[in-house]
Every structure is written in structure tokens, then in C-alpha cells.
């Protein structure tokens, strides 16, 4: 049985099709990434799976429960970290978690124990009694991750978990997620805009565009699936005459740039060019000082599947943009 099963799932808002007959399944223990440009339908999809938005047609089962007919069983099985930071800034870390534990009806004894353990797991133990408004973005995100796990869900939904965090905090969140996932036997479905994040964390990645699934595979296979463009950076301690010409004539080479003894070679086929380069060097008695081959990144995969154009589409105005909202805490 799959932890998440989606069949012909569709969501229309008037004439606009946000999610168009999607089909996919997520296995138990998998980290499943949803990638796509802004407005591709990722958030709508997550909201349907977390019972926040009813689908127009199709079915979705989460932990074996139907998101429409057995919504409360679904809610009990999932932990959700929405995109917006939703912790209560005036309350302390422990209070924020305790409120949610109570919303899930966890008995007092277990509640105190679970909260303590979770705060320790996300390294916030020493700040447990401090108001969240004094927390940095990374600390707030970690607190929300802990809060989402307070009822020991089986499936964890994260909507852009590291957006707006500095690089160090991002890495901290990643490590935390990897550890929590294995310790707690979680299945994770996450959306992200960061390709390095998807590459590092996800077992499989679904690229969604215009509400449709355009690619679905492991990061490695996705990268292999597109015509590559590798960059070889090579430097030599000694080299013969006309070496630049020789390099340009290697198989599959598109372009060579030289800076004294360092060469930057663009190739359509990294492995073949590399082998040929080494052979040529040996034959010409050139000594290689360093060599690196950069392979295709998920950015290339993303652009390949979703096109190059900027997607300038209009979206519904957000209430958060209202100048009338009261200022709270660090916002």
C-alpha cells in the first residue's frame, strides 16, 4: 500500500485549471519533492492532500484514507508545515507546541514528554520558555517542524520549508529533516524552489507545470534524462604548441575558453570528452594538473521541462499584503 495515492486529481477555480488530472503515488518512507514554477499548482495540490481545499474531481488517499470522505482520519495522520510562518509570536516555544498537542487531544503526561523530546530533537531545548518573537527565521522554522510532529504523524507535508532562510539555517533544517525522517519513520512530501534542496533531500521528484505532471523520477535519473551540457575545467603544468586547437577538436566539444594554462571546455557529452582529453594529453606529453567535470544540475532539468520563459501570471491578492494588518512581533 502506498502512503499517498493520487488518481486523476483535478482542481478548477472557475475556468482556471490549477491541478489537471494528476496521477502519482508516494511509497512509505519516501521523501517526495514537488517542483514547479510559481503558479504551477503545487500549493493547491498540497492543500487538497491536507484536506484544506476540496478537489473538483478525482481521488486522493493519504495513509489509506480518502481526503474527502475520511478527512479527520487524514488530518490525524498528517503533519503540515505551511509556507507562511504560523507560530504565535507572543507565546513561548513550549506554549505553541502545547496548544497544538491539545488540539490533537494528546493526554497531559504524554504531551509534556513528547514536547520535551521534540524540542530537543530540533535543538530548541534551551529556548523552550522564550517567546517566539525573539526567534530567528531558522529557529521558527524548526519550531514549526517540531510542532507538526507533536501528534506523531506518519506523513509530513512541507511547503517550501527553507524559503527565506540563510544558508546555514537551511543546512540545519535539512539535517534535521533527514534525522527526523529516519528516527520517526516518516514519509515526506515537500515543495521547494531550491534545486539543491530537492537534489539533496528527495528520493523522487515530480515536476509540475500548468497543473500537469511533466516529469517524475529520482534526481539522478531526471538529470540523465535530458541532453546534458557538461563543463570540464582542466589545467596543465606543461603543454605542447597549438594545444588550444587540439582541445577544440576533441569529440563533442562545443566551445573552449583559455586563461593561460587553464581551460574551460563545454561539452555535449562529458564522459566521452573527458576520456578523449586524457588520451590526447598522454599522447602529447601534456601533464594534467587538475581536472573537474560539472554534471547536469536539477536547474537544467527544471528549465528543460518547464521552459525558459519567465512566468508572469496574475494571482489573487494576498491579505498579507494589506497595509492595515496589525504589526506583531518581528513581522
Amino acid at each position, binding site marked *: 500500500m502506498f502512503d499517498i495515492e493520487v488518481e486523476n486529481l483535478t482542481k478548477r477555480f472557475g475556468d482556471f485549471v490549477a491541478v489537471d488530472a494528476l496521477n502519482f503515488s508516494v511509497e512509505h518512507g519516501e521523501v517526495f519533492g514537488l517542483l514547479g514554477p510559481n503558479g504551477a499548482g503545487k500549493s493547491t495540490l498540497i492543500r487538497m492532500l491536507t484536506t484544506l481545499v476540496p478537489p473538483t474531481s478525482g481521488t486522493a488517499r493519504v495513509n489509506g484514507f480518502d481526503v474527502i470522505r475520511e478527512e479527520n482520519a487524514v488530518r*490525524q495522520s498528517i503533519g503540515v508545515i505551511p509556507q507562511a510562518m504560523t507560530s504565535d509570536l507572543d507565546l513561548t516555544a513550549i506554549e505553541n507546541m502545547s496548544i497544538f498537542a491539545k488540539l*490533537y487531544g494528546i493526554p497531559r503526561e504524554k504531551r509534556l514528554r513528547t514536547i520535551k523530546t521534540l524540542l530537543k530533537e530540533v535543538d530548541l531545548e534551551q529556548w523552550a520558555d522564550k517567546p517566539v518573537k525573539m526567534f530567528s527565521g531558522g529557529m521558527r522554522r524548526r519550531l514549526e517542524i517540531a510542532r507538526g510532529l507533536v501528534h506523531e504523524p506518519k506523513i509530513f507535508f512541507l511547503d517550501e520549508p527553507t524559503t527565506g532562510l540563510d544558508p546555514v539555517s537551511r543546512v540545519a533544517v535539512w539535517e534535521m529533516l533527514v534525522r527526523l525522517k529516519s528516527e520517526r519513520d516518516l514519509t515526506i512530501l515537500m515543495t521547494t524552489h531550491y534545486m539543491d534542496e530537492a537534489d539533496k533531500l528527495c528520493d523522487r521528484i515530480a515536476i509540475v507545470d500548468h497543473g500537469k505532471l511533466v516529469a517524475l523520477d529520482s534526481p539522478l535519473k531526471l538529470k540523465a534524462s535530458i541532453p546534458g551540457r557538461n563543463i570540464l575545467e582542466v589545467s596543465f603544468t606543461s603543454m605542447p604548441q597549438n594545444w588550444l586547437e587540439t582541445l577544440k577538436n576533441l569529440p563533442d566539444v562545443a566551445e573552449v575558453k583559455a586563461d593561460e594554462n587553464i581551460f574551460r571546455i563545454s561539452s555535449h557529452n562529458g564522459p566521452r570528452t573527458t576520456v578523449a582529453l586524457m588520451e590526447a594529453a598522454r599522447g602529447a606529453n601534456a601533464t594534467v594538473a587538475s581536472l573537474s567535470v560539472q554534471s547536469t544540475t536539477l536547474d537544467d532539468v527544471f528549465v528543460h521541462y518547464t521552459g525558459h520563459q519567465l512566468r508572469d501570471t496574475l494571482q489573487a491578492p494576498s491579505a498579507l499584503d494589506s497595509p492595515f*494588518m496589525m504589526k506583531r512581533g518581528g513581522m
Partner: protein
Amino acid sequence: MHRVWAIIERDLRRFRRSPVLVIVSIIMPMVQLVVLGYAFGGVIRNLKLGVVDEDHGVPAIKLKEMFQAVAANARTFAPLYYTDKGTAMRDLRNGTLNGVLDIPPLFSRKVLAGATPRIALAEDNTDQFSSSALEGVIDQMLPAFNSAPVQPRMTADATLAVVEVYPYVPYIQYLLPGVIVLAIFVSAMIGGGIIFIDDKARGLHEGYLVTPIRKFELILGFTLSGAAKAIIAGFVLVTLGSIIAGIPDPLNIVRLAKMLLLVVATSLALISMMFLIMVRVSDPLVPRAIFGMLNTVLYFPSGAVYPQQSFPGWMKAIAVVDPFTYAVHGFKQLVLKNTGLMAISGDLLFLFVFTALAMTAATLLFRRTL
């Protein structure tokens, strides 16, 4: 119920950390009580009445002596004597005088002949409060002027004997019931309107919606926590307001207990009304924009500042369904008359039924999805 308590706990903890909003909702009505109470409540004094005596007879002199008596005692007006009617009228039009009283030529002769003597009062009726005060005093003065020096022991004239059931109620006390309700309303508006919508816009409600909480539990939690804050504001106003307005024995425990019951009923009614209005709103501007209008539409038809009997039909119709009306009526009974619970049972019944209906409607309209 544990979920309802979780919502209440969250809200009250937040309130404890930043009680500014509730303090604001107490101070605003308190300022209104004091300023409005003294602005309208006072006895009108020292109006300027121009007196033109064109008669100079003995009855005219008697009349002028009576004016002096008013000026010396009640001090409603001070007479200024003019020899020329034209000058007096010009001063009236210029706003120097509040009224001109003309004792016409032949006044004395008509008095003595019993031939319907008249004096004329020209008044600046752009200010109705002043002109009716002036008119009232002169009206009261004339029977004394008219009475014969020797009174018959028995007359056939019907007279009115007025018994005032309650001690004199100054306007500030008349205003207090409305102001208590206003404090509860402001608190409901901030807690049930502005904070509710801001939390929604911020995504805090999304956090609730992904848990297995039921619609009714959410509405009940929001209502009870909002009501708790409104009750605090209302009860502070009940006690402090009673002291400021000079209600006799303001800290009487039995009356405070009755007032607390009415504060609870009013808070529940106004908060649930607010949630009903806001249940489908998501723009943070809306509660701010309708704040003033709601206040006007609910507060003034309630009879808090002026008797409802003077209202046109459409305004009376608003008053019938307006929870303010019943709350204000109830507080008037308790604050001004110190009645028992029976006297406000109708008001309590309306407020509780209103709460139940508003909460049911809000639950039905509440969207469990985004």
C-alpha cells in the same frame, strides 16, 4: 471540549502578553463617558436675554424684578436692558444675545384691564437646547406673575402633582449603561473582528484547519475566548464607570453580581454577532472600515443616548433586533434603578437567544476549507 479549551488558552495567553488592545477598549468608552456626560449633562446657565421695556408701567417693573430674581438664583439667564428694540434685535442676530424679550407699550394697561396682555420672546432657535431652556424658565415665571396677591383657598383649576420615583439622574449616569455596552462592543470589534481577520490572513487559522477540529468547536472556542476579554472590559467599565458617574453605593455586591450576569450575556451576544459578520471576510481592511459604521448603527438606535420614542419607524425597527437595545435597557434597570433580575429577564433572554442563533448561523457559514 479539550480542543475548545486549547483555542481559548491560546487566545488568553496572547492577551495576557499584550493587553494593550483591551486597555484601549476600556479607555475609549471611559473617555466618552466623561466627556459626553459633562458635555450634555450640565444645567444651562448665563444665557443673555435682552429686555426692551416699552411700557414702563408697574406690572412691567414687577416682571423685570422677577428676571432679576432668576438671574440671582437659578442663573439660567442674565437680563440686559435695552431702550431700543432695533438695537436688541440686531444684537440677537449678531449672536451677542440668546433671546430678546419685548414688553410692548400698553402692556400695563392691558394687565389692569384684563385684556389679554402679551409679552414677546424672540429667540435664537438655532440652538434648541438654549432656546428651550430660556422658554421654559419664562413659562414657569408667568403663572407667578399672573397669580392674584390673595389666593382663594380652593380653586377649580386642575393641577399636576409630579412624584419622582428615583433620585435625580444626571446625564452622565443616564449615559453609563450605553458606555458599558460600548466597551463590550469595542472589545468584541477588536477581538472578534480585527484580530480574527488578521490571524486568518496570517495563516494561523490554517494551522487549526489541518487538525481534526470541528467547525463548531472552532466557533465556540473563538466566541468564548473573545467573550472572556469583552467580559473583562465590560466589568471594569461597570465598576469604574459607576464610581466616575457617581452611582450611589457603586460597589454593592448584589448589584455587581447582577451586572456581571448581564455583562456576560452582552459579551456573548456581541462577539457571536461579530463572528457572524466576519465569518466569510478575509480582507483585513473590512473590520476597520465597518467599525465606525457598525458602532453608529448599533449604538444610537439603542436608546443609549436619547429616548427611542423619538425615533422614526425605520430606526425603531433597527432597535428591535439590535442587541445593544436590550443590553442598554438591562443596564439602565440595574444602574439607574437597581432593580431585581426579573426586570431584566426579557433582556437576558433576548441576548442568550441572539447568541445561540448567531453562533449557529456562523457555524453553518464557516468554511472548513480555504
